[in-house]
């Protein structure tokens, strides 16, 4: 480690270029340590620290190299940008990962890279790192890598046999946006590897069912990232795209990143501030898709293409669908409970448990974490509203807005509740088959800056 300053300089540049990829989570894998090895993964993921912008840091997130042959407008590493260029060697990355891991700084490695020489060459470099970690260091911690669009399927397959998660970033929600801002990337070059990874995952889980020791392939699945606000797309388009990705490619996570102006390309908006509130609303809606059983078309449609900035997407939906309320807390099934503003995943799970032994009233459900300020307009307990109230849309809207601070980045109290250790989550999920829809992990909360809805 003689070239200490050199290593430091590389780290500065290559961590800086990687930081706009927001998908820093370590969840979904349960790789166990083996004798003589180092490391393990926790299905719920672990945040090791939080950066100054409040994001969870759990992985050593760096680029292999920033010497790119492409010229994507939104990216700092584009070939036409004047920037110091540098690259790590595979050994340097493996050494950093292991030594950070031994000190419990991180859960593992998130390795990405600019396209060096060619997509295949870049993929080969990445494979050298993961092989060194898994085979020489016998590292069983979390590894997330980028599949480089355009790389050979055989290389992607090889890489996938070593890592926990692979991702291909879409970045721009529509092909129009792609054509304008990333002319060298074709939609097919992104969706191709995505489809390939997803079919490999399916094949592997089929094999797993038949042969217990069949090899792993990205056990924590794949994820992707969309940039919000670099193109003209509406929230509707973005949400529909995410819904499709969850369904068609079995995507584990779609991450959204408010566009941060890092480039002065003429085709890009010269926004001063990243659209954080918009990003927040889309994250909330994404939660509604993943954990609450909503469909994109329920939340937005052609006459309503963007989210209300004042109301969260669930309140907004409920106000447009007042005829579906009130619902009776003691009878409604789990998913119906989840549709009530002010009842989140935790409180709905608790209601379902608690009412097995007694009928609940308002004081009870308040203890279970229901936010009555919002929920009271939409529910009855034992057939009664909390008090005589006017259930018209305007009245409710005014009352809900008056009671909320803007914007509620993380609701106090919720983060704590959501950090149930994995065993408890498993227990809750075993309770009722419908809960298999999965509950958000602590990392979900921390990574998405979204509280219970």
């Amino acid at each position: 480690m003689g070239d200490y300053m050199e290593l430091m300089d590389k780290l500065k540049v290559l961590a800086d270029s990687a930081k706009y990829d927001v998908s820093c989570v370590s969840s979904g894998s349960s790789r166990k340590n083996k004798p003589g090895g180092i490391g393990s993964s926790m299905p719920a993921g672990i945040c090791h620290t939080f950066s100054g912008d409040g994001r969870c840091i759990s992985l050593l997130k760096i680029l292999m190299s920033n010497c790119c042959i492409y010229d994507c407008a939104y990216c700092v590493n584009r070939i036409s940008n004047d920037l110091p260029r540098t690259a790590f060697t595979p050994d340097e990355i493996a050494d950093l990962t292991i030594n950070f891991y031994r000190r419990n700084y991180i859960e593992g490695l998130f390795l990405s890279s600019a396209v060096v020489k060619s997509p295949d060459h870049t993929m080969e470099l990445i494979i050298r790192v993961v092989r060194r970690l898994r085979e020489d260091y016998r590292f069983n911690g979390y590894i997330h890598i980028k599949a480089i669009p355009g790389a050979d399927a055989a290389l992607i397959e090889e890489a996938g046999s070593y890592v926990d998660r692979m991702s291909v970033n879409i970045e721009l929600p529509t092909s129009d946006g792609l054509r304008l801002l990333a002319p060298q990337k074709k939609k097919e070059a992104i969706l191709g590897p995505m489809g390939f990874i997803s079919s490999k995952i399916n094949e592997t889980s089929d094999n797993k069912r038949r042969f217990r020791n069949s090899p792993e392939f990205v056990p924590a699945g794949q994820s992707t990232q969309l940039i919000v606000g670099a193109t003209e797309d509406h929230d509707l388009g973005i949400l529909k795209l995410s819904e499709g990705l969850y369904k068609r490619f079995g995507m584990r996570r779609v991450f959204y990143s408010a566009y941060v102006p890092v480039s002065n390309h003429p085709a890009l908006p010269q926004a001063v501030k990243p659209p954080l509130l918009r990003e927040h609303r889309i994250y909330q809606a994404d939660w509604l898709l993943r954990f609450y059983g909503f469909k994109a078309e329920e939340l937005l449609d052609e006459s309503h293409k963007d989210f209300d900035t004042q109301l969260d997407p669930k309140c907004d939906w409920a106000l447009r669908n007042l005829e579906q309320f009130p619902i009776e807390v003691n009878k409604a099934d789990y998913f119906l409970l989840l549709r009530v503003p002010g009842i989140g995943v935790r409180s709905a799970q608790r209601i379902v448990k608690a009412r097995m032994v007694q009928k609940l009233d308002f004081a009870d459900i308040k203890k279970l974490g229901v936010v009555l300020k919002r929920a009271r307009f939409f529910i009855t307990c034992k057939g009664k509203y909390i008090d005589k109230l006017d259930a018209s849309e305007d009245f409710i809207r005014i009352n809900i807005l008056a009671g909320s601070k803007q914007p509620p980045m993380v609701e106090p109290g919720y983060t704590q509740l959501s950090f149930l250790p994995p065993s408890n989550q498993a227990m809750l999920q075993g309770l009722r088959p419908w809960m298999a829809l999965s509950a958000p992990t602590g990392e979900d909360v921390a990574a998405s800056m979204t509280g219970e809805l």
Partner: protein
Amino acid sequence: MLTYIYDGSFEGILTAVFEAFSRKQVPDAILSEHGLQQDITSSYIFIDTDCAKSDRVYNSIWRNISEDALKNCYHAFLSEDPQAGTLIYRYLKLGWRMGSRVDLHLSDNTVFNMMSINRKLEFEVHRLTGFVRFRQVEGGIFYSTISPDNNVVELLAPHFAERLSDQPWIIHDIKREIAALYNTKTWIVSEFSADDIPLSTEDEKLYSVLWKQFFKTLSIPSRENPKLQRQLLPRRYWDHLTEKW
């Protein structure tokens, strides 16, 4: 007010619970002798810890309520909440009446308090699995300090014994002057004082500086949100975090 006093051990609490039943008394509180402030309106009974009695209670929880209930009680004890003894007693009374379904009574105050104490403790354990920071000291040992709200070293040890199984490590709770010590085979918890911690190795400086650099680089200035950061990473943990030194 009738108050039972126990010696501060888990067995002490269970013995007190046993005594309440066998003496047919209903104590208003079961408090630890540590940090006890007596007042003249209460009458105090000091309970001598007796392992034969505490074992009977222990087995009865396991058999007649549930394994979860046993875990809940033990974790409540580890929380060091002054009310833990009283809470465990009330929770067990309910538990013996309701059996394993006791934990479904979430809107009952006793069950609710039991669950929140447990949740706080489990949350802290979960956080610390991420927040513990080791530094390598001479002799190749990885040493870390913590000062958690709950007494959790013994709950952290299994996680690190699996994960970092090939390196000796120490997790030192400086608040309680105890530590989990691991020698690459087994771990134990013992009393521990900070006097004889060896110096850090040369490598150590290199990696901690690199880590600090990485941490600094990651924040996106236009998204700066110190309030959120403090909410997720409360100040009281900062002293032990390499990136905050």
